[in-house]
């Protein structure tokens, strides 16, 4: 606009100079009047032309929206909507992020305690089994010893049989009963030890199954962490939206929209590209093993 005005001024001065030269060269009253009228007509024409150019320039770059104008109202309302939307999304994401974090902590604590308890139970059962086996052996040795002594006593009684046969038969019956009791006790203890060993083996097997299945905590924890990372990225974008001023100019408004679009692109798109889901497993069957 400024350049065009300058050209018009220079053109006007140049034309006026040519008309003056024309009057000087062909001086006459009629010529002076005709050239003056021509110059006045040209000045009026230039003035009209300048005014129109000025109007079209104003249309090409409208001024900052005046309060109350339709554009200004649209920008203010749209901006207020974005600020509110950004603020609400940020609040929701903050809550969801916190809740997910709490879930992760609770899950982690619960599984850690569960695993500890299972391991403790397994250790206790293993110890109990080992102790019972040891105890069983001691009982077995003791029972054998007692049985041997009873048999010795039985032989001694046989030697006395001639003196009092009735009493000896009674004593022998008692001793047989004692030997049977000791043998039965010995067998019961041995049988219990075997049963306990079996239970111990089963407990250990179940603990191993538990170990496989409780590993979901590690996987879910990584998935939660990944989801939280995505949420934090969106939260940043929402915070940027919520930051917009109360009465921005149209240029500021467009620049801010561009800014949070850039943030969105930076965080979300690059997040997708850079860090795919860290957990590919779909069930709890054990994963591949590869030795290099």
């Amino acid at each position, binding site marked *: 606009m400024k350049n065009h005005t300058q050209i018009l001024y220079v053109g006007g001065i140049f034309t006026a100079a040519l008309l003056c030269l024309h009057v000087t060269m062909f001086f006459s009253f009629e010529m002076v009047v005709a050239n003056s009228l021509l110059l006045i007509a040209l000045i009026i024409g230039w003035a009209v032309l300048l005014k129109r150019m000025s109007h079209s320039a104003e249309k090409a770059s409208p001024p900052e929206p005046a309060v109350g104008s339709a554009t200004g109202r649209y920008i203010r309302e749209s901006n207020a909507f974005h600020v509110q939307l950004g603020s609400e999304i940020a609040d929701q994401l903050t809550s969801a992020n916190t809740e997910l974090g709490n879930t992760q902590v609770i899950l982690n604590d619960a599984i850690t305690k569960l695993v500890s308890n299972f*391991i403790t139970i*397994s250790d206790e059962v293993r110890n109990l089994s080992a102790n019972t086996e040891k105890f069983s052996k001691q009982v077995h040795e003791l029972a054998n010893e007692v049985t041997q002594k009873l048999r010795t006593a039985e032989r001694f009684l046989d030697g006395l049989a001639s003196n009092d046969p009735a009493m000896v038969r009674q004593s022998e019956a008692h001793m047989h009963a004692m030997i049977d009791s000791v043998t039965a006790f010995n067998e019961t203890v041995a049988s219990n030890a075997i049963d306990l060993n079996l239970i111990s083996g089963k407990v*250990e097997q179940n603990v191993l199954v538990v170990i496989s299945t409780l590993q979901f905590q590690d*996987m879910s924890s990584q998935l939660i962490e990944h989801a939280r990372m995505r949420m934090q990225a969106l939260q940043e974008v929402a915070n940027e939206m919520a930051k917009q001023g109360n009465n921005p100019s149209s240029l500021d408004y467009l620049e801010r929209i561009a800014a949070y679009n850039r943030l969105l692109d930076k965080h979300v798109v690059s997040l997708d590209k850079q860090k795919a889901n860290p957990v*590919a*497993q779909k069930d709890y069957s054990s994963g*591949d093993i590869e030795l*290099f």
Partner: protein
Amino acid sequence: MAKTILAIDDSTSIRQMVAFTLKSAGYTVIEAADGQEGLEKANANANDITLILTDQNMPRMDGLTLTRTLRTIPQFTKTPILMLTTESSDEMKSQGKAAGATGWLVKPFDPHKLLEVVKKVIG
């Protein structure tokens, strides 16, 4: 004398389960919660450690960085390092191999299979 294994994982429950599995087979287990702590414990027990079992995604130092670092330390140039991780992509496995890992085990692990691999690697 029992062989010593360094088990590194940021998940307490996974560390407990790995330790339980290995201890039940008679190994001595040293535990660490991330790559940095793992590196410190590896250096502190360099003469005893016969195998390192590490997770990949951990705070402070990940498993691949730990493996690369350990391979620059003379005592650990030949120590077997097994990665035990949820990561299962071929790209990650290639990175593990390039870093100097001995093997790649994808979680969840089967205790019997873990012991088989450990026995195969260190006897």
